[in-house]
């Protein structure tokens, strides 16, 4: 059981939760995630860590209310307890001196980009962040990301804020004018795939963070298996970060869609119940 200490709507249906989790906060590293179950009857779902505070013993996560489990999570308020919280999970991102790094965050990829940009900048890298969303109201955490980066480019698909267009377009322009040593992309699968396709011919190392379905998230069930470089990897323990040029995105998309019907049914049942 983990107590919620802060709850904030960052946008319509996008919620930031701060949770008391002393041990996770003490041992969290850049690029890791947690698995949680809002209630005893819930699914276990993975959510990236956005931020943590070792001294206060708290962690922060950001999620969008889309299906059953995130709807359940959104019903919990400050003072309520999350039934199960496990973390920090996954291999941390190696914080090295890469040089000039671009951190690309799309939609719900923005929160985890925060700790990565911050970690890389503290390590002495020059960090340029590109964040994007469908529209201005969904472009979250801009000020935090700006603080964590040397430079920030914002984009919206509809042009309501910042550059008009996808983050990949902003990235392309940047790559055409500047020598970049590393790209890190987190966001929807099509976005990460587009980034990987863009950087592949340029030979720029690109790390993506994969979000397959998970169950135990400790390496035991294999549901999160992804194809990377022709090999099967478990995203929960071998990842979630992988070389974007080696990831089989089509396979990932198929596996993510596996329970679409069931997910709709689960949400419906829950809505009818409350």
């Amino acid at each position: 059981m983990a107590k919620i200490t802060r709850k904030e709507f960052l946008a319509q249906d996008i919620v930031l939760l701060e949770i008391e989790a002393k041990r996770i906060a003490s041992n969290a590293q850049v690029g890791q995630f947690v698995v949680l179950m809002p209630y005893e009857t819930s699914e276990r779902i993975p959510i990236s860590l956005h931020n943590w505070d070792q001294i206060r013993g708290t962690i922060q996560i950001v999620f969008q209310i889309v299906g059953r489990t995130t709807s359940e999570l959104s019903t919990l308020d400050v003072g309520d307890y999350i039934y199960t919280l496990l973390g920090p999970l996954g291999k941390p991102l190696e914080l090295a001196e890469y040089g000039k790094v671009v951190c690309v965050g799309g939609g719900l990829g923005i929160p985890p980009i925060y700790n990565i940009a911050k970690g890389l900048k503290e390590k002495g890298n020059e960090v340029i962040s590109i964040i994007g969303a469908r529209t201005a109201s969904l472009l979250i955490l801009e000020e935090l990301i700006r603080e964590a980066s040397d430079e920030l480019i914002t984009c919206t698909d509809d042009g309501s804020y910042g550059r008009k267009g996808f983050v990949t377009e902003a990235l392309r322009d940047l790559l055409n004018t500047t020598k970049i040593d590393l790209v890190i992309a987190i966001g929807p699968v099509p976005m990460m795939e587009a980034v990987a396709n863009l950087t592949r011919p340029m030979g720029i190392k690109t790390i993506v963070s994969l979000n397959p379905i998970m169950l135990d998230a400790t390496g035991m069930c294999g549901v999160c298996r992804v194809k990377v470089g022709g090999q099967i990897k478990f995203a929960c323990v071998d990842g979630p970060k992988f070389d974007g040029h080696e990831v089989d995105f089509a396979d990932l998309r198929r596996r993510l869609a596996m329970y679409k019907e069931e997910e709709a049914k689960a949400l419906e049942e829950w809505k009818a119940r409350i």
Partner: protein
Amino acid sequence: MEGKDIERRIPIGERPPEERIKDFEEVCLGYTKEEAIAEAKRCLTCSRPLCVEGCPVGINIPAFISYIKEGNFPQALEEIKKKNLLPSICGRVCPSEYQCESKCVLGKIGAPIAIGALERAASDYGEENHLCEGNSPSHSVGRVAVIGSGPAGLTCAAELARSNIEVVVFEALHEFGGVLSYGIPSFRLPRRIIQKQIETLKAMGVKLEKNILVGRTIPFRDLLMKEKFQAVFIATGAGLPQLLGINGENLEGVYSANEYLTRVNLMRADQFPRYGTPIKRGKRVAVIGGGNVAIDAARVALRLSAEEVYIVYRRTEEEMPARRVEIEHAKEEGIKFLYLLSPIEIKGNGEKELVCKRMALLDERDASGRRKVRETEEIFNLKADVIIIAIGQKPNPLIPSLEPTLRRGKEGEIIVDEEMRTSLEAVWAGGDIASGAATVIMAMGMAKKAAESIKRYLGVT
């Protein structure tokens, strides 16, 4: 008891197949008190009992059976508990037919004594009147961390707690029991039995903490340094599922047995959508493998209303590592067994096709004494919408991968000496993490050995 009667075992009550495949309630009903007493009376109480040699934890079997003969179930349970603190679990899942029962002299003239069923009877009836004998340690004489709450972890914790050692058990999942909870279905081991064993441990003063993945939530080294444990017992099991490495393995509806079983046993997907975790309920289900896990998965599929369930095994029934009684149960329930087939590809989507090569049985035997097989050119196709891969598990790699100085074997198992000590000072390991995938009772045997060694290390006698 005279003449032919001594050759015959008192039958053990089971629910009829047509009834039991509709739910997840226990299949085996166990003996009534009267039946248990009658079965116990067949025991010859050998002066040099061979059955004890067959028990990995050395229970004084004739002694506990003698108490059952007198109808003294609490005393029988006390006798078992001297060596085994999880009798209600072992009485259900121990492959006793290959262990104690295989050594019973009655086996030469008829059926050996049903030791497993009597152990269960002792645990079922022995605690009726005095629940959970708790003896919280008054003063602690040492502090030990146990990683994993499966059979090895629980056994080691119990043994240490009995000697007034403070024990903290860390579990990564949200329920205790390890493989007992996520792996073994409730129709073989009801959840209340696991729950009761956990409660007993708590009453003995053992602390259990869930949702802690040692290596991540607590760095392994912190246990000895920051958290001030004097010794650590690693019992993280063999959780890493083996896959076939064939095309189509990532298709929708293709599961590792671990995933399939975890969805149901731990996450209650059988009660979807009230419980949020879904599972594909196939009409035709194929399970690849021949061990207990394969049989468990097949029987779960049946209970999720599959119309046809197949076990696809590369050798023949004789070579199957699964318990005989479970193979029989599966057959009674209508599961079909296909032998000498080795999958090479999974085709299609939704309705899939498992493409197999027909194998030929050779006279030659492998190291385990089982007959070897070789591939033939013949292809066999099996239609199935759900395919479950149950070809084994390997030791959990997390802690060894984060501790490069912890010596590991070829299969990823942690190397231990005869006292279950690892290559690291003050660190022991036991159960499947040290042996690769084995049985509950083997894990318990190792855990007991480790506990003895830890006690010596701490200077506790």
